[in-house]
């Protein structure tokens, strides 16, 4: 492991709120949220080839779980809220993942797409729980005596959680589970032949992916401070897919890079008003034409050649 590089990176993350203008602290928190989703989605899509167009649904489950926990039990530590969000999303992931085992490729993509719509409909209709279309205000995150009331405080929360999630993802690859996932990525048939329990590990990938997205959802709730069903539409799910493809399938650093690039790009284009989708779309197309395989494979090519 390249410790100096990690140390420099960590120092940069710690120093960021002092070095950057206030707005960019908030933006960095959004980058972290999206990076965690991208890692989660990549563990599913990049390793077990299960493409999901429903991750905005998991994000919503995580976000609403955390917000509801923090509202019902004021003063609950943010860690508990995030863990509940993670477990809630993981449970939903299990419920969706088991039946989805029978599906692959396009069919899975469509089932997850439908899942995303169903989650939004559920939020709209469970008014007693989610306040429906009126939207839900998220209370300030608390950590023991501290209220994380500033963008800087929330940024540090996001970075700490994000770092833990990245570390876990990088290490997951080295565990038995990780090796099984890698084997599935290379060839499902070969993996099965060498004793990998395909159903078990594919379900596990689904659950882990949902868990990651649930954590990100919890962070999203506290960082943004307001939730409504409009936030979690199908286009958000598609954005997540774009992040991992632009970043590079099957690569943890690629997921982070893809999330960072697309989040910052999307944000910086907001000032172009009606030209924004045009420019964003054109850049997506260009990146795929000139950088097939995404950022990760471009970096690999640069290193190799």
């Amino acid at each position, binding site marked *: 492991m390249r410790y100096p590089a990690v140390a420099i990176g960590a120092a940069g993350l710690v120093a960021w709120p002092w070095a950057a203008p206030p707005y960019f602290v908030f933006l960095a928190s959004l980058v972290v949220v999206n990076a965690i989703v991208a890692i989660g989605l990549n563990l599913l899509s990049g390793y077990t080839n299960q493409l999901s167009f429903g991750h905005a649904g998991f994000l919503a489950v995580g976000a609403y779980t955390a917000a509801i926990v923090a509202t019902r039990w004021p003063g609950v530590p943010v860690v508990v809220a995030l863990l509940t969000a993670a477990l809630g999303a993981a449970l939903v992931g299990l419920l969706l993942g088991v039946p989805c085992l029978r599906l692959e490729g396009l069919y899975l993509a469509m089932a997850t797409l439908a899942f995303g719509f169903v989650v939004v409909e559920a939020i709209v209709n469970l008014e007693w729980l989610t306040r429906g279309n009126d939207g839900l205000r998220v209370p300030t995150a608390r950590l023991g005596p501290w209220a994380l009331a500033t963008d800087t405080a929330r940024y540090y929360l996001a970075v700490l959680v994000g770092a833990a999630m990245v570390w876990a993802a990088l290490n997951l690859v080295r565990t038995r589970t990780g090796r099984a996932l890698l084997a599935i990525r290379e060839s499902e048939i070969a993996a099965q032949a060498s004793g990998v329990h395909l159903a078990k590990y594919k379900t596990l990938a689904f659950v882990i992916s949902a868990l990651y997205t649930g954590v990100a959802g919890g962070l999203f709730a506290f960082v943004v401070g307001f939730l409504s069903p409009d936030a979690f539409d199908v286009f958000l799910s598609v954005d997540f*897919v774009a992040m991992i493809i*632009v970043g590079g399938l099957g690569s943890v650093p690629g997921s982070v890079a893809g999330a960072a690039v697309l989040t910052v790009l999307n944000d910086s284009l907001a000032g172009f008003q*009606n030209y924004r989708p045009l420019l*964003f*779309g*054109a850049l997506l*197309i260009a990146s795929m034409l000139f950088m097939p395989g995404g950022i990760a494979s471009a970096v690999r090519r640069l290193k190799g050649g």
Partner: protein
Amino acid sequence: MTTAALVHVVVSGLATGSIYALMAISLVIIFNATRTLNFAQGEMLMVSTFVGFTVYARAKVPLVVVMLVAVVAAALLGWVIERVLIRHAIASTPFDVLIITLGLSLVLRSAAGLTWTHDEFPFPSFFGDRPITLGPVRLVPVSLGIIGASLGLMWGLWALFTHTRLGRAMRAVAQNQRAARLMGISVERVYSASWVLASVVGALAGVLIAPVIFLSSKMGLVAINGFIAAVLGGFGSMPGAVVGGMLLGVIENLAPLYLPSSIKHSVPFLVLIAILLIRPGGVLGRPARRKV
């Protein structure tokens, strides 16, 4: 609810369903050739319809001419997109192509908004809104017209796929590209033809549905229902696309009649999930079995 009302709602659902079916067919045509979902299908439909509309607004030409203009615009658009964007990326993974079509959908919608504004426009129709009474039921020409025209178009496509060289080449490519190439089929030409054909089918669907849902930069969203229809019927199968589309249109209309409002909007998605779980291959599709 009277029988007449029920019949009307079902027929209306079949009309909307025909449009979903045409969208599903377009998606399947491209999928069979390029092995990717085309996220921009709805936006291609929208742009072609807008081009037709512009000619109509400027010159008040008959609707048949408007339709022809839309079809030509669609053919050109499909051809250019395939040649300029898709063919380059086709060598890399299908995921790259997916993102390209996604980017394209954003570009087309935004460009349409810049050119024609994001306003909604009334679009001329071949068929009237005034109901005709036939015994106990009342039928609306516009619904019947959409259903009839769509069925006609589907029949034309069936003829194309079964009775022409190009159609047979397309089916061969859909089954096995390498084998098709070895048989002497120009796979590249099939790619081009597929994009052009899908785009043209979309444009016709656009001209048919624009009078009902109005012409606007967001009308391309109807493609989402096309996706669902295609999967309901079994992706890759043309008859499946037709059945899936009709089924979805009718379900969408019957659910609000009989179900409480809290779940009625989820019904199409719940049906989709249920069908995927019971018959993963869709209503008419073959269950996907992988051979080792």
